[in-house]
């Protein structure tokens, strides 16, 4: 697969067409782009939109989407990372106005010392505001806070056909609704107003609790969701029938006594050789991880970054899956279909292809903030699979069957291969969404699931 892509790349560069390779976080698929625009200022964006051919552009941020939803095969990207100004922050109300390339990390750097934190944060701080809105990201507090989009009060959107459009609850509310979770297809966000939330400080009262079956996970989850703002579980998908995992839960701590010093971490220098990651090494890792957490002190006060962003400590951790990259599989299964979840885990355990990053979380019942929002009531599970060609894709197809049959859904931000049928089943509003797409925008993902246009 990747060999082929590399050959295509070479051919294209030989033929003299300028091409740029931009990879998503999963480093699969390997795609060449015709051009990457890098505007430094919002005033340059309308010009880029005007000059482009229909269906040729896609805004791109820090590239933390795993699959192809942030890519635009053979066409163009607008790299928004230089549009990173914070245009205003009201310390009294916690409202912050950011350009689309501002990262969540920047927001935390600016606001945490003043007692404000993100109302919803995903598992990495290295995503842009644009990306967080476009994928309507969720976090460990979905059960009580909903998604990121629920805190977006206002968006200014560059549209190729009608200039700068302001979207809020009164003005263009449907465009706001479409842009949240809109996969970047509705236009380029000039700036967005985000509501932050008050916190006492950078500390989290965290607990971890081992569990050994789905039912005990559900018990823990039900018991914790009322008392804890943040809950999530790590899952050992190699344990097979006797499933096990660690349940993490936490609240913002009132503790302010300690000084907070952010720590840097290592960085993976290059793609790890493929043989390093096999069922034995992953099994051993999982066993060690489980043992350490099952026997360590269950309650402690930890810094927010190690609680929310443990993987950010290792920069470029995605290289651990080798040069072929990896696929992440995140689906949501209705709560009443625990049997489907068990079936899913069985199939994964049977394949021997799972990895160390199995995450399980119970979503709450907050209404979706966007037209194509992924989170919905049920159980969501996310797993990484190193890309091993056909074999990996086949396994994921068998998982799709279970998800579709149970009435669940797959998460576009993590996807590089779902079928149009599953997308349509997951997002019944996708046809209504089409009319909100900016005529100059398209993405690899969108063409794959909705047909080329």
């Amino acid at each position, binding site marked *: 697969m990747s060999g082929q892509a590399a050959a295509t790349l070479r051919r294209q560069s030989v033929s003299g067409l300028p091409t740029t390779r931009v990879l998503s976080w999963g480093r699969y698929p390997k795609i060449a782009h015709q051009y990457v625009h*890098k505007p430094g*200022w919002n005033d340059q964006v309308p010009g880029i939109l005007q000059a482009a051919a229909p269906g040729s552009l896609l805004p791109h941020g820090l*590239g933390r989407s795993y699959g192809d939803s942030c890519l635009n095969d053979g066409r163009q990207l607008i790299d928004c990372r230089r549009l990173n100004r914070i245009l205003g922050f009201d310390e009294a109300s916690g409202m912050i106005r950011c350009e689309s390339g501002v990262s969540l*990390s920047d927001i935390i750097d*600016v606001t945490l010392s003043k007692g404000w934190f993100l109302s919803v944060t995903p598992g990495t701080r290295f995503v842009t505001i644009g990306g967080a809105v476009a994928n309507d990201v969720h976090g460990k507090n979905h059960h009580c806070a909903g998604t990121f989009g629920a805190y977006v009060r206002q968006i200014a959107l560059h549209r190729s056909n009608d200039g700068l459009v302001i979207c809020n609850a009164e003005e263009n509310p449907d465009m706001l609704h479409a842009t949240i979770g809109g996969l970047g297809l509705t236009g380029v966000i000039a700036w967005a107003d985000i509501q932050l939330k008050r916190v006492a400080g950078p500390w989290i009262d965290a607990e971890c609790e081992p569990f050994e079956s789905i039912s005990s996970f559900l018990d823990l989850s039900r018991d914790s969701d009322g008392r804890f703002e943040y809950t999530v579980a790590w899952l050992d998908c190699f344990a097979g029938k006797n499933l096990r995992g660690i349940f993490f839960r936490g609240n913002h701590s009132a503790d302010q006594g300690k000084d907070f010093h*952010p720590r*840097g971490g290592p*960085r993976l220098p290059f793609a790890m050789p493929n043989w390093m990651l096999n069922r034995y090494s992953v099994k051993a890792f999982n066993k060690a991880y489980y043992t350490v957490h099952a026997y360590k002190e269950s309650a402690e006060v930890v810094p927010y970054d190690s609680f929310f962003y443990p993987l950010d400590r290792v920069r470029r951790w995605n290289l651990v899956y080798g040069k072929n990259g990896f696929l992440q599989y995140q689906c949501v299964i209705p709560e009443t279909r625990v049997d489907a979840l068990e079936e899913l885990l069985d199939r994964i355990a049977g394949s021997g292809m799972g990895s160390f990053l199995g995450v399980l979380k119970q979503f709450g019942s907050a209404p979706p903030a966007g037209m194509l929002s992924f989170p919905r009531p049920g159980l969501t599970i996310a797993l990484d699979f190193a890309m091993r060609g056909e074999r990996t894709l086949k396994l994921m197809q068998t998982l799709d069957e279970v998800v579709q049959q149970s009435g669940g859904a797959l998460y576009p931000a993590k996807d590089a291969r779902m079928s149009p049928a599953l997308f349509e089943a997951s997002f019944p509003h996708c046809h209504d969404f089409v009319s909100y797409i900016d005529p100059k925008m398209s993405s690899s993902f969108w063409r794959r699931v909705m047909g080329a246009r």
Partner: protein
Amino acid sequence: MSESTEAGRVKPPTGSFFAMKKIIVLGATSSIALEVQRQLARRGCQLLLVGRAPERLAEIQADLVVWGAKQVLTYSADLAVIQQHVGLMEFCRRAFFDFDTVLLAYGSMRNQKDCETSIEALREELQVNFVSAAALLTLFAADLERRRAGCLAAITSVAGDRGRRSNYVYGASKGALSLFLQGLRSRLHPVGVRVITIKPGPVQTPMTDHLPNSARFADPKEVGCDIANALESRSPDVLYTPRIWRYVMTAVQQIPETIFKRLAF
């Protein structure tokens, strides 16, 4: 392309000494200047931003206030036009009179081939990168010399360390500025005014986006961090950033001209 924002994680805000600083940035909308300003804002500095586009200056002004700058003023002028310097100096004396540091951060990199075929392009390149910069530095040097304190810093380039066939006009303009700073440093040393020559290697900015391999160039955030740290500390006189370029350029300068003239880069 994703890891760059994480590189060069910023130093936490430091002591009160720096918080008192009043800094003028000439060419405040240049990519490297943007990163330096963020660092300075985090440390609570007061800033005067000078650039061409008033709306862009207003945008950065808002951002820097959020990042912690005590005060941010803006002044729009085309610094390449020497006639506009007087107005700037007047504004500084009036609204920002006790400034202690000046960072000159603007520059232009035209296509080398254009500069070989068009004398106008050549003249423009030298005017922007050297003549106007030297004029400004002279004005500010007079001011600081009278006060017997302060710091002048200017961004030149490693390209000024040796003339190369692929961009010697840019290199000459930056090299001339480096020499100018060298002399100025010597002149101002006795009165206690510091002069810093900043020589970045290739950096990922709009100026270099069109060059091959630009994805491998240094992260502006890292460079901005180095520069802010240099403004804060007492050393060095000449800052290479990223630091590896000090060693690279030392080696490059050793290559005999008979060999160097044959190298096609």
